[in-house]
């Protein structure tokens, strides 16, 4: 589904990604871990098409096509979803209106019929129940005045509405208490199918107790230093990142 080869990227002329290789197959959950500044979030941003990142070498194939050549909205319409580490507040745009506009933009691009406001309300309310979200958030402006936990749930709600093929969740666990984490994780787990894939970018192992990965990749200084199964995350938890970054993790095995 996603094949990243030798990906290099810079921000403001500064090299952040220095040769990422990663392959994600349908039905898989991948965790990308690493210390702060290792390039995890940059990788997520480059895949989603954020401005200000320049790909200097390598490529990313999504369903066989050149993902990096697509505009951000086309990536979204073809099923790539980024849950933001810091969801953006948009004063004046109603949350429900925004999500319906997003869903219909995607449906229109696929040649499907648009969903009207009434059907959409039914859909979104059922999804909100699964995420134990307060329905008052529907009529509020997008993310405006939401608590940290509400913002993260709102991201997963969008994921639930848009049903992406490839979901990239950037530190979706940061700032969540244990109850919220469980809700968000069960939301993500509930959206897993044999046909889609999830890439979790996270600093901590904690999230992986709830969303169990098939593969764990450890990044540092813009490279994947080590790849393993879910046990790798546990080992990191007990031994720290230094164990990988200072020599123990030798070969790039992805």
């Amino acid at each position, binding site marked *: 589904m996603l094949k990243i080869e030798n990906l290099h990227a810079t921000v403001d002329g500064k090299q952040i990604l220095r040769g990422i290789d990663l392959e994600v197959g349908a039905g898989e959950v991948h965790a990308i871990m690493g210390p702060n500044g290792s390039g995890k979030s940059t990788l997520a941003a480059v895949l*989603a*098409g*954020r*401005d200000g990142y320049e790909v200097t070498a390598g490529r990313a194939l999504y369903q066989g096509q050149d993902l990096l050549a697509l*505009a*951000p*909205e086309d*990536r*979204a*319409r073809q099923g790539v*979803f*980024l849950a*933001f580490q810091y*969801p*953006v507040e*948009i*004063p*004046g*745009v109603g949350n429900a209106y*925004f*999500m319906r*506009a*997003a*869903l219909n*933009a*995607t449906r229109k*691009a696929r040649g499907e019929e648009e969903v009207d406001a009434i059907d959409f309300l039914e859909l979104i309310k059922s999804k909100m129940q699964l995420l134990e979200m307060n329905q008052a958030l529907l009529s509020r*402006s997008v993310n405006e005045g939401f608590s940290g936990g509400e913002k993260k749930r709102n991201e997963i709600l*969008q994921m639930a509405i*848009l049903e992406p093929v490839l979901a990239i969740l950037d530190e979706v666990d940061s700032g969540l208490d244990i109850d919220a984490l469980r809700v968000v994780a069960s939301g993500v787990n509930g959206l897993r199918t044999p046909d889609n894939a999830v890439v979790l970018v996270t600093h901590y192992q904690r999230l992986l107790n709830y969303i169990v990965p098939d593969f764990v990749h450890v990044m540092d200084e813009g490279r994947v230093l080590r790849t393993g199964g879910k046990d790798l995350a546990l080992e990191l938890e007990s031994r720290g990142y230094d164990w990988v970054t200072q020599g123990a993790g030798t070969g790039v095995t992805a």
Partner: protein
Amino acid sequence: MSEALANGYLESLLQGQSNLPRSPRGWLNTLRADALERANALSVPTTRDEEWRYTDLSPLYQKSFHHAPPAALPARAELTAYAVPEAGCTLTFVDGHFVPELSTACADPALTVMPFSAALAEQDPTLQAHLARHAVLGDDPFVAVNTAWLQDGVLLRVHAGRSAATAVHVLYVSTRAEGASYPRLLVVAEANGECTVVEDFVALQPAAYLTNGVTEVALADGARVRHVRVQRESIAAFHFGTCAVRIGRNARYLSSAVALGARISRFNLNITQADEGAESVLDGLALIRDKQLADTHSMLDHVQPHGRSRQLFKSIVDDTAHAVFNGKIFVRQGAQRTDSAQQSRSLLLSPRARVDTKPQLEIFADDVKCAHGAAVGQLEAEQVFYLKSRGLDEASARNLLTFAFAGEIIRGIALPSLARQLEHIVLQQTQKQTSYRNIQ
């Protein structure tokens, strides 16, 4: 521009004024004569005048406009687009002339609403007591010219202690190229009276014409007035408006002023919080494009203690349009415990769009809270990206964000039908802006 030419321009606007029929009320004839004298003593503004620094009126001076009755009245159907169902009555002026056939009477027992002609016939003391007492003849030539032409207008009186159940709608329709109209509205809210008034300036054709209006609002103690002013003149028109407001003890004035039309528009909002505990909430929005210039000058004078004021002015400027906001706040020595906040926020949609925004605070009391801020910017890239990452294309994302920026002001308009009309206009205009941009 030479002084002679400038003076000549005011003279040209006053041509025919001497043919106005004399009023049976001597005080009105005196008022007009004073105004004429004042207008003759003044010259039209140029950018050398501090109050007009950013607003070059030379395009106006190249055109001539004349006050005359409408050639033909518009059909009722032509005005349905401007209907405000929440209003209990509509007073329609065509090219500055009151048209009873296109107006409805006000049945609200809390209000007396009538054209000046009726008020003069009845010798209503309110008119004489308030007319031109708030928008006084000062240095503004446009107020002087309007007052010299004083003939038709609306008197809206809110009876003491009564609250109007419906809004009053005053519709100013321009139909003639080269026409000049001088609308006049007087709102007098007696003690603890409460009302909502809508002024809407519209055009039936994209002609160049002149509107020069004056509105006066007097709020007695404890009164509440909501005032909605929509300026959607033709894109070739010239619009000048002054609204002078006097707010009494514990009275509250709420204003939403929206400027969408006119080649050049200037709106002066002069508020005097004349007594203790007076309050004003002033919302403003200018949404302009092409070569439009929209200038808002506000003057908010806190005279007595415990006053409160909240002002939010927003502009959305595209193409080579130019928005001006000058917000003066005075807090007089006696106005202790004043709580005032002013915000101006501008959104520039094109690299050649321009905004001049100037807060101007003069505070003579020491125990006050006065906040002000001005922000000029473009759409936030982070917000655009967020929307795009959810599948919206660039144009839709920008439209939605522009619409949301305007929405804060439009949502504050308590008449749903009018708010919907305005939302529709804003949406259309933002979409037009996008297609325009795509062509370039």
